[in-house]
Structure formats: C-alpha cells, structure tokens
C-alpha cells in the first residue's frame, strides 16, 4: 500500500520531495554521462571524454548529499511503512546511480587510448545504441520509483534482456575481430570492457526498477530476473 495522501506534517512531505528532487537531478546527470560517454567514444572526442572524467565528482557529491539527507530523515522522522521503504529505496538507488556514474567515467577513460589506436568496425555505434537504451531504462526506472509505478518498473526490468543480448552479440563480434587480426586485440579488449560497463549499467537500471517494485508493493520481485542465454560456444569457459 502506498497512499498518495499528504502527511499531517507538511514539513515531512517537503523533506521527502527535496530528497526525491536530488535523486532525480542525480539520475539526469548519470543518464547524460552514460550517453555522452558513448557519443564521445564514437566521435573519438578526447576533450569531451576528459570533461566527463572530471564531471563524475558532481555525481559522487550528490550521492553523499542524498545519503546524509536520508540519514537525517531516518533520525528525525522515524519513517515507517511506505515512508521507510521510500527512504531505503532512495538510498539504494543513489548507490546504483553512483556506480553507473563510475562506469560512464570508465568508458570516458578508455576513450583516450582508443582514440590513438586502430578502429574496430561497428563496435562503437552498437555501444552508443546500448548506452542510449540503458539511459532510457534509467529514466523510466526513476519515473517508476517517483510515481510508485510497479507496472512500468516491471517493463523496465524485462528490457534488461535486450541489453544482455546486445552485449553477447557484440562480445562475439569483438572476439571475431581479435581472431582475425592480432593488432585488434588491444582496442577490442577496451571496447569489450566498455560494453561490459554498459551491460552492468543496465543491471543497475534493473536494480532501480526492482526498488520501485519494492516501494510500490512492499516486496521485491521473487522471480529470477530475465537472463539472456550464456555467451555461447565462443565464450571462454568460466
């Protein structure tokens, strides 16, 4: 149960609104970092990549601020029921967003050596499409969270499968490039780590969608998350 009626203490409502506003701001920065890092990679724009490496600080600062605010709310308001679930969900979501910020930063870092090396055909445009899809997932997971919309959250969660499939396809393609020409190995390895970063960002978006479900229903989804098939015959055995 998640009522939309206001609290008797309107100051409590204002504090929760302010906390959600910070989280939404943070999510906006993270979505942009993810897409911009992939765009910078494709354009080999090292200036943009360097700017983005520095900008990750803003995301980290917001995470810290959100955690302080949430701790303050817990200490002063003793939230219960949906209020408690909201604050727990905000804290977990903030951690996930902070991690996605780090992953985007890592994409930007790898863009610097990649700009100096051989091009691997097709990879960066696939990565850009993946990053765009994950950014949309993040945006919609956040909307599901702020609107307590379990249906939208379930839809976002199901889309993680598409990201996994794209990652697996790209993995096989990069492997083929490496087998064809040894001088592709260094750039292909960087591109693989980048693709893996985006895939991980998709997992975080899925995690945020699960927090939205927890907030709306009081329970985390119990069924296993949809998973793509393992990497297939070309994958190294783990």
């Amino acid at each position, binding site marked *: *149960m*998640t*009522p939309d*009626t*206001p*609290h*008797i*203490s309107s100051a*409590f409502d204002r504090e929760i609104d302010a906390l959600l506003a910070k989280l939404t701001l943070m999510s906006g920065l993270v979505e942009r970092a993810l897409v911009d890092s992939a765009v910078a990679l494709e354009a080999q724009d090292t200036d943009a990549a360097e700017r983005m490496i520095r900008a990750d600080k803003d995301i980290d600062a917001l995470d810290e601020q959100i955690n302080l605010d949430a701790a303050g709310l817990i200490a002063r308001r*003793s*939230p*219960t*029921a*949906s*209020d*408690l*679930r909201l604050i727990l969900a905000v804290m977990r979501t903030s951690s996930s967003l902070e991690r996605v910020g780090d992953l985007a930063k890592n994409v930007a870092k790898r863009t610097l050596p990649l700009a100096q090396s051989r091009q691997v055909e097709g990879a960066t445009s696939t990565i850009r499409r993946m990053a765009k899809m994950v950014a949309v997932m993040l945006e919609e997971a956040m909307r599901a969270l702020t609107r307590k919309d379990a249906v939208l959250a379930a839809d976002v969660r199901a889309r993680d499968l598409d990201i996994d499939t794209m990652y697996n396809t790209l993995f096989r393609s990069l492997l083929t490039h490496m087998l064809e020409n040894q001088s592709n190995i260094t750039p292909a390895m960087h591109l693989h780590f980048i693709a893996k970063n985006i895939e991980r960002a998709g997992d975080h978006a899925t995690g945020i969608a699960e927090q939205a479900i927890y907030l709306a229903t*009081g*329970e985390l989804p119990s069924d296993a998350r949809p998973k793509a098939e393992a990497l297939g015959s070309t994958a190294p055995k783990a």
Partner: protein
Amino acid sequence: MNLMQTPVSDTTALKPRITASGVQVYYDTNHALKDVSVNILDRTTTAFIGPSGCGKSTFLRCLNRMNDTVASARVEGKILLDGQDIYDKRVDPVQLRARIGMVFQKPNPFPKSIYDNVAYGPRIHGLARNKAELDEIVETSLRRAALWNEVKDRLSAPGTGLSGGQQQRLCIARAVATGPEVLLMDEPCSALDPIATAQVEALIDELREQYSVVIVTHSMQQAARVSQKTAFFHLGNLVEYGDTQQIFTNPQDPRTESYITGRIG
C-alpha cells in the same frame, strides 16, 4: 547493550493465552468496540495502537473485566483465558485480576511504604504463609521490575516519594507480585522521560519471557520497539493484526498505513 533494541523473534510456535471472539462493547448506546476477534499469544508482547477513541483501551479493559466498574458498559462476545470464559458468572473478578495484572498511564502507588505496595496483592490473595515468604515475594517482584537495587535500603519509605520512573516500576512490581499470566499496560510510559521509558521497555522485554504482555501506546516507535505483534484499532474496529515488523514495513490496510505514517486519511 542497547536498551531500545528488541530482537525480531518468531512467534509462530506460540500458543494463544487469551482468545477473544466477537467482542462488542457498548457504553449506553455508544457502540465502542465492534466485533473484535483476536488471539493474545503466550510469551509475546502485543501492542494495541490507534487514534484516541478507537477502542484500544476499551478492549484492553475487557481483558481483565475493568469495564465491570463502568455502570453504563455492556460487554458481549467471548474472552477466554487458557480456555476459560472470564465473563462466566463463577469467575471472581478480583481473582481474575491477580492472573491478569494491569499497569496504568500515570504511576499510582498506594500511599503506603514501598514494601507494602508490593506486598498488598500477595497479602489479600494469601500467597505467602509467613513473613519470610512475603519478604521473598517482595524482593523477587522488585528485582523483576528492575527496582530492587534502587530501593532495597529504604523499603519502609513511602512509594509516593520515588521518582516518576521508579513509581511506574513499583507499580509493575506490584502487578507481578501476584504471579499473573498476563500483564496489561495502558500507556505505561506516557508520563516518563526517555531514560525511564527505556528502562520500562527493557523490563517489558524481560517480562515477556514469563508473561504475555499487552501494551496500549500512542508512541508508534514504542510499539515498534517492544512488541512482536501489533493490533491496529480504528473507530471501534480491529483493522489489522500481524507481526510488528510487517505492520511497520508493509501494512496491508490503507487505514493502518495512514495512521502509522502520520498521514491525513
């Protein structure tokens, strides 16, 4: 040790001590309690919460027939203590209240010595054969109420001379002196400071190892801290009863949610 901490415990294996079914209470024409059915488990602290006038204290008072003293009150339905109907004609309310003790909102020690306050119940119920046995009951009860060390050197001093928190623990000692099976507490900490409240809460947690404790409280945090089961009353109805953890993290009824989160609703 954190005095405020209550370990989450499994209550599934516990038997009901009190079984209430279809309890209705009327004060003249005012229908104060509507068809309440609930089990009060053995060795469990059950919290009754709800807004003023919701019927929680009325129901608490049914459990040891305190409503008998209210001329306009009429109680219907069945309340069983260990399978025995407490409203049966043959049940003596005074004997019943020795088995179901009560602690009130304001500490109300008798204007007697600390010793006599605790010895009062055992004396009228003839629970001690001699002075030595009575001394022992007084000491055990004061120890159980975590008050012994503070008063053992002044047992003949008046109970009314103690601090508020000590007076409330004296009343708890008085209630446990008759060896009750159930302890009813009607907002026992509302007149106490946080330290005394923490002491009483720690005490409640110890008492529930032997008794079934039922506490009416207006403090949501207190209910969350001390109880394993919570019952939410609203307009005379028992709206929701469940594990305290569940009630405070994921209540099922929107009225419960609105009340515990402090919403207009």
